[in-house]
């Protein structure tokens, strides 16, 4: 377009003018002004619009980029029926609520019980197998800490499922890079057959040890990508949670509480560790 080429020429000329003539300012500025006025107004509008678009894009980019990198979420994950939603309710309001299987996430701001009074966002993710990975993908970037809830009463039967979920969690690239604090909450301690946190830790370490071998031998997926090829812990040695880059803590809690529905939950341990974040 002629206007563009003349515009380009004009821009070059204007620059050249500005560069060369610092001393004899006024006449050149006069000529510049005249040339700008001579130009087609449409071209000027085009230039202004382009500049505005560039500025707006920069603002948007900054806004979007910065919002992603802030990590203020505490995720409640675990198998189905481990008590995540009830724990969520207890932590936020202290009340007992009947719960059903969650099919979406719930989030709410949580005020930690420490001197600083920091607030996190507590997010309760659904535990069902078909939804787990989607929600984890969505929220793993924002995770500051992960509370992994385990049903201590039926742990023996579910050991392999718990370990598999934990393995997937630990070998995820984003999580292993950010290394959020991991708290394994052994829930349902009010039931008499509940296993202790120490026992659960030992069993999980044993199981993850085996899983390291079987999962790395698993088939690659059909488009050639091999998921989660991170090797947990140290090669040659048995797996222990202390070998992980992130801080892992095991504690016991009971969302239902020893007195049944009306009493308070025994979640002081959990609240304390959340306060330490």
């Amino acid at each position, binding site marked *: 377009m002629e206007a563009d080429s003349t515009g380009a020429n004009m821009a070059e000329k204007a620059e050249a003018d500005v560069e060369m003539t610092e001393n004899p300012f006024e006449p050149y500025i006069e000529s510049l002004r005249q040339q700008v006025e001579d130009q087609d107004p449409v071209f000027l509008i085009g230039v202004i619009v382009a500049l505005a678009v560039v500025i707006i894009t920069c603002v948007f980019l900054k806004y979007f980029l910065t919002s992603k990198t802030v990590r203020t979420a505490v995720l409640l994950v675990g198998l189905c029926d481990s008590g995540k939603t009830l724990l969520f309710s207890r932590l936020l309001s202290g009340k007992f609520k009947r719960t059903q299987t969650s099919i979406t996430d719930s989030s709410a701001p949580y005020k930690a019980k420490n001197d600083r009074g920091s607030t996190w966002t507590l997010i309760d993710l659904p535990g069902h197998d078909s939804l787990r990975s*989607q929600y984890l993908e969505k929220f793993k970037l924002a995770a500051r800490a992960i509370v992994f809830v385990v049903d201590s009463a039926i742990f023996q039967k579910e050991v392999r499922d718990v370990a598999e979920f934990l393995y997937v969690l630990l070998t995820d690239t984003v999580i292993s890079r950010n290394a959020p604090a991991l708290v394994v909450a052994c829930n349902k301690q009010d039931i008499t057959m509940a296993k202790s946190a120490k026992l659960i830790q030992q069993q999980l370490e044993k199981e993850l040890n085996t899983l390291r071998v079987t999962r790395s031998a698993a088939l690659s997926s059909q488009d050639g990508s091999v998921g989660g090829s991170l090797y947990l812990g140290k090669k040659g040695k048995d797996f222990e949670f202390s070998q992980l880059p992130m801080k892992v803590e095991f504690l016991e809690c009971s969302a239902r509480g020893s007195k049944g529905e009306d009493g308070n939950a025994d979640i002081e341990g959990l609240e304390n560790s959340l306060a330490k974040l």
Partner: protein
Amino acid sequence: MLDFFTIFSKGGIVLWCFQGAGVTESFTGPVNALIRSVILQERSGNNSFTHEALSLKYKLDNEFELIFVVGFQKILTLTYVDKFIDDVQLHFRDRYKNELEQKGALKLLNNSFEFENDFKMLLREAEDSSKARSPAPMRSFKESEKSQKTVKSMIETKGGDKGKEQGGKKNKNTKKEAPAVEPAKGDQGKASSSGQKMAENGNQGLTADEIMQKKREEFFRKRMVGTTEKPSKSPKPQKPREKQMRVWDMGGNSTKDLDYSERNGDGSTNGGEQNQEAQIDLGMQPSSMQGDLPSVDYESSEGEEMEDEDEEVVVSETSKTSSKKGGGFGGMFGMLKGLVGSKSLSQEDMEPVLEKMRDHLIAKNVAADIASQLCDSVAKKLEGKVMGTFTTVASTVKQALQDSLVQILQPKRRVDILRDVMEAQSQRRPFVITFCGVNGVGKSTNLAKISYWLIENGFTVLIAACDTFRAGAVEQLRTHQRRLNSLHPPEKHGGRPVVQLYEKGYGKDAAGIAMEAIAYARNQAFDVVLVDTAGRMQDNAPLMTALAKLIAVNMPDLVLFVGEALVGNEAVDQLVKFNQALADHSMSDKPRLIDGIVLTKFDTIDDKVGAAISMTYITGQPIVFVGTGQTYNDLRSLNARAVVSALMKA
């Protein structure tokens, strides 16, 4: 009558619940079963579900993310339940609109929803209304129409109109009586008499024009009145007293015309009459087709039809544009207004997009019913949802469909064969895998691939050749065994061959061979037993019985259905019939059904990967292996995201 009613959020917190009198069991179990089988498996197209003795109906409220579930005994048939749920939903929303509109989950925790009284009132209304609609009592003779008629009206007369005038009072009480008494214009009752009129017209030999006119009027009348009144038991005042000879509209009045024996000689009068009657019958005048052919609009009956259609189309279009918020100012502003601001999705908005998506899925080889069920389920999930700014209907629907597809393909239980084999190893028993499927899908080939993979991971495998029907089946497996043993020689694996074949030739009973093979494996401490069965069509009842017997008797750890990725709508039929056969012919309460799917010949389809969706949707079981070729290395696991992106690619 209801066992329970719950209202809970999609995040899992129960807002309010009601338990019927005398019901002691908690409803958490059945509702969880409902969520897991229906909502999570994307079967929310039909909104009822049975679980043991209970029947559950539910409704999703997508705007506030709530689920309403009602449960009652299966044996009761309560007619008011559907409407009741809708009423409760509307009532709850109106009452708690303010609380529910707050963001975040705190609103659910902090507010207590005291819905008891409203619920009781609604329940009472619903029950009363259902009782009110009980069958109407029989009318007494006095109330019926017969008593209204005078004797005179019952005598039939020649002219059809006169018979219609009924003497006597009109009974205003009975609803069913069609107001057919108006004599003059378009009422439906005339149809019965006009039929007779036609006959009589035919008798009187009216000209063709008049016949056409009458027919046109009749048609017009029918179109105008439509389906409003059906004179179901409308009084026929001209009830014939005796049998009348039936007169056809188009028929002549004498059979003499049909007697062609004299026509050859006599051409004048008979022929003339014949010609004239032929004209009358065919409704043609000799000079009507002269000149240019009349255009199509001339046939007024067709024209009316087209006009009506046009009207309907125009009406619906105007209603569509008026329902959109920015209808006035021009297309551009309307589009922009649709983008910005909160607009809740309705069925009509989603319909065109879903239609396109359904066709797209079918083009990608998803079975037709599965595609439509999926689209219905996505529609249910999105109905009433409020869209955010800068999102179009199409993008929301696409995103929801993508999420549902990923959800379907994700396995619902842990799939780790190696770990389970290790578990069985520690229990000192072999891990038994059975392969079943129709003919020619690749059972034996994939069995060999899986045994190669297991050997690579250090397990010993026994192959049981239970295909005793197909010629060469045993030899094929023997060849595979020899190859695998040469690839992994026994010297490297502790001196014993890693693969062994257990076969008993052809023609024997497959279930018996399988049982012996498993016993042999237990004795010889093999880690895995792979049972190869013969391919069979799903309609072949005796073969399906034989397969069910094999599985029921041997109780394998894993029953894998082998299906090829090329199959289209057949997949649905195959899987349903296989599962049905396995369920029917097993003796126990918990029959062993298909536990997993092996999807073979995946390299032959480039991106028409719909068979994966059909198979997982029908059975709810995960795809454990994917076969991508014919060498031993061509065994993969399924990557749900890759498959879904290939599926949604344009």
